[in-house]
């Protein structure tokens, strides 16, 4: 058993896990902001999917991976705007809006894929992001090299996003407004904080992060797009937020754990442990269910999921 562990838990495994965790961290950092303003956003999977597709398509047509990222962020900002318009301005049911956004995104990405690229996409590759060219000495560091210095830029953005969001939440006036709006919107409104503005900005931010997250999925190696590429990662990011009790650090750790679960399943398959391959693939999803049940819904923002009607007593 000890021998098996040493084969599985290598530096390469940790590096892979961090890479798998990256899209989750990015999405969760966006999500935690809008959840904290009291808007239930179950539409992150759709956002990620649109992000992944537009990053690929943008990168393919412009020939520039950075343009791909920009287009992904802009597309997801539009989805975020749509979400905000429906849930904040039109005060629609937030779950229904999320279901609509997820279904719409999946359909849109699939149809555009076929319209723009035809039916056989297997050979199509867009420009993508390579690992950052750190000095060879750093890349060759034992353990730290594969974990920290053989990664794309997204990994570093994700790692930096966690303390940044923490700082915004607890050390800035914006964070105070965000937390107050999520807990008791009416109180915030009476203090001159516009609930509408805060919720719009938060959903737009979640959109932008969803775009980055999608790009981190499609154009960091694979450099292509396939139907339903997110495979529910948006929901896993949501689970990370719940697991992290709406705290950015907690959510980040949650995402890291899912990354590890995914790294593990890959490792088990490559090492060739005799078990049906479907079992390790289930790991991240099983963890999602177990954690959601175990953590329950403690410490949710009091105004979570509740639309705010400015004119109501």
């Amino acid at each position, binding site marked *: 058993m000890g021998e098996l562990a040493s084969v599985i838990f290598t530096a390469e495994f940790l590096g892979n896990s961090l890479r798998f965790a990256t899209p989750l961290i990015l999405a969760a950092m966006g999500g935690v902001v809008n959840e904290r303003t009291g808007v239930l956003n179950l539409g992150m999977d759709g956002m990620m999917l649109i992000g992944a597709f537009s990053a690929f398509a943008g990168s393919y047509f412009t020939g520039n991976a950075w343009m791909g990222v920009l287009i992904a962020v802009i597309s997801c900002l539009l989805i975020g705007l749509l979400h905000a318009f429906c849930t904040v301005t039109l005060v629609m049911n937030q779950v229904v809006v999320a279901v609509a956004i997820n279904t719409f995104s999946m359909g849109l990405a699939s149809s555009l894929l076929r319209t723009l690229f035809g039916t056989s996409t297997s050979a199509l590759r867009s420009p993508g992001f390579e690992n950052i060219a750190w000095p060879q000495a750093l890349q060759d560091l034992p353990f730290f090299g594969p974990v920290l210095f053989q990664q794309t830029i997204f990994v570093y953005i994700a790692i930096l996003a966690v303390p940044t969001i923490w700082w915004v939440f607890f050390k800035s*006036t914006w964070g*105070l407004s965000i*937390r*107050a709006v999520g807990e*008791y919107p009416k109180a*915030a409104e*009476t*203090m*001159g904080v*516009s609930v509408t503005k805060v919720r719009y900005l938060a959903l737009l931010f979640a959109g932008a992060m969803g775009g980055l997250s999608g790009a981190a999925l499609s154009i960091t190696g694979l450099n292509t797009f396939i139907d339903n590429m997110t495979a529910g990662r948006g929901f896993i990011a949501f689970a990370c937020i719940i697991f992290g009790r709406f705290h950015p650090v907690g959510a980040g750790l949650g995402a890291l754990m899912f990354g590890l679960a995914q790294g593990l399943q890959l490792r088990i398959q490559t090492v060739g442990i005799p078990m049906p391959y479907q079992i390790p693939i289930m790991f991240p999803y099983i963890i999602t269910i177990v954690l959601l049940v175990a953590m329950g819904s403690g410490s949710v923002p009091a105004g979570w999921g509740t639309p705010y009607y400015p004119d109501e007593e």
Partner: protein
Amino acid sequence: MGIVLELEKITKIFPKVIANKDVDLKLEQGEVHALLGENGAGKSTLMNCLYGLYRQDGGKIYVRGEEVTINNSDDAIKLGIGMVHQHFMLVPELTVAENIILGLKSAKEPLLNLAAAEKKIKALSDKYNFGINPKDKVRTLPVGIQQRVEILKVLYREADILILDEATAVLTPQEVDELFKVVKKLTKEGKSVLIITHKLEEVMALSNQVTVLRDGEVAGNVRTVDTNPTELANMMVGREVLFEFEEKEMDLKEVYIETKNLKVVDKKGVTRVNDLSMKIHGGEILGIAGVDGNGQNELAEAITGMIPFQEGSVVIKGVEKTKLDVRDVYEQGVSHIPQDRHHTGLVLPMSIKENLVLTDHYLEPYSNKGVFNKDVVDEHGAEMIEQYYIKAPDAGVPTRELSGGNQQKIILARELCREPDILVAVQPSRGLDIGATEFVRQKLIDQRDRGAAVLLVSTELEEILQVSDRIAVMYEGEFMGVVKNGEASISEIGLMMAGTRRSNIESQGEVE
């Protein structure tokens, strides 16, 4: 002294209702001006126009002589207007300091700069003897202190016009005294205070001038020294008010309901009712006084089977049980007027007649083998509307469309027409106008006179004193004392409400 705030012919129209019509009001500097009116008279609407939460449809607002437009609360704050809301606008999960600086730009924007704010708050708190620690989380503070945080919020913004909306509703008599002292101190400093209230004593004790609103219009404007409570009450209601009920010596029957060492622990693990034993006889009203949130509601919900209790037992007409079931309790002849008519009292989208049979709908004559007897339900609805003076076009109207008073009458009709032996009434007149309140209290007394045992939970001490035969004061899940009505003075009851046991209160000459 000059006029700091003037409202001129303010009109606010909601769909179907004119909430304010041509309301004038002048607030003098350094004075307390009371805005008096029943619930629904349009006080809150008027203040929300002033505070920028609503836009008025007509009329003008002048602050320090200049006409102003107030589009949102930010505008109001900039004009030096601060509001202490009836339902505190505090975020429980945040600290005192965070609540106070919420929405303000910091000197080091966007950095929070909590330390500087905490220092300033401490200084303000010391100045007014508030004893507030800016680092405390608001949810850990008692209600009286939370109100001080609300006041600090306004003072921190250097407001010199303060609006206090029903500020005494949640306070003990002692806390009310403290609040009055603070208000007097503020006016001495030259600040002007507008109090919104429906309590006459408050107006008489605190204000220099009174504006009375009735049905959205000004019914009178007088200097407080020139008036008296009776005159104000008449202005407020538009007719003579008699708030005295006939006293009747009742013969007590046997004990109808009893709790033995009842203990209720809520979902968060907090003990709400602690080792509580009491007895209520047929033909008496036991009034439970206390500040909201001291376990009264849990007691009422436990003995009606709505929430479980962990220890002890409830004896209903001689049958002792350690576990209750709502339907079972109802079938034992208990009726319940729940605290929150919107959540537990009525199904708002359903019609009046349907709500009227919610408790007994499965029984004859309302249904027969599981099938509704529509004619009987219709007839019953029409009958109750007449008997209980429910103002509604017909019994098929959804209860959501009725006023609070009429909604409460539906609950009364449903719970009382079955002639219960035991009635549990929680805050039965909360939010009702004087007329409806009178009606509700008379109905409680009628039940007692009929021989029922009545448990009345109310945070309005006045209500308890008016109708109860015995008064129990509850504090943190325990009775601080049980007295016959008239045996204890208001200040004694106040002390008990604040957590002093009756046995520890120096006797003030009452007879046991």
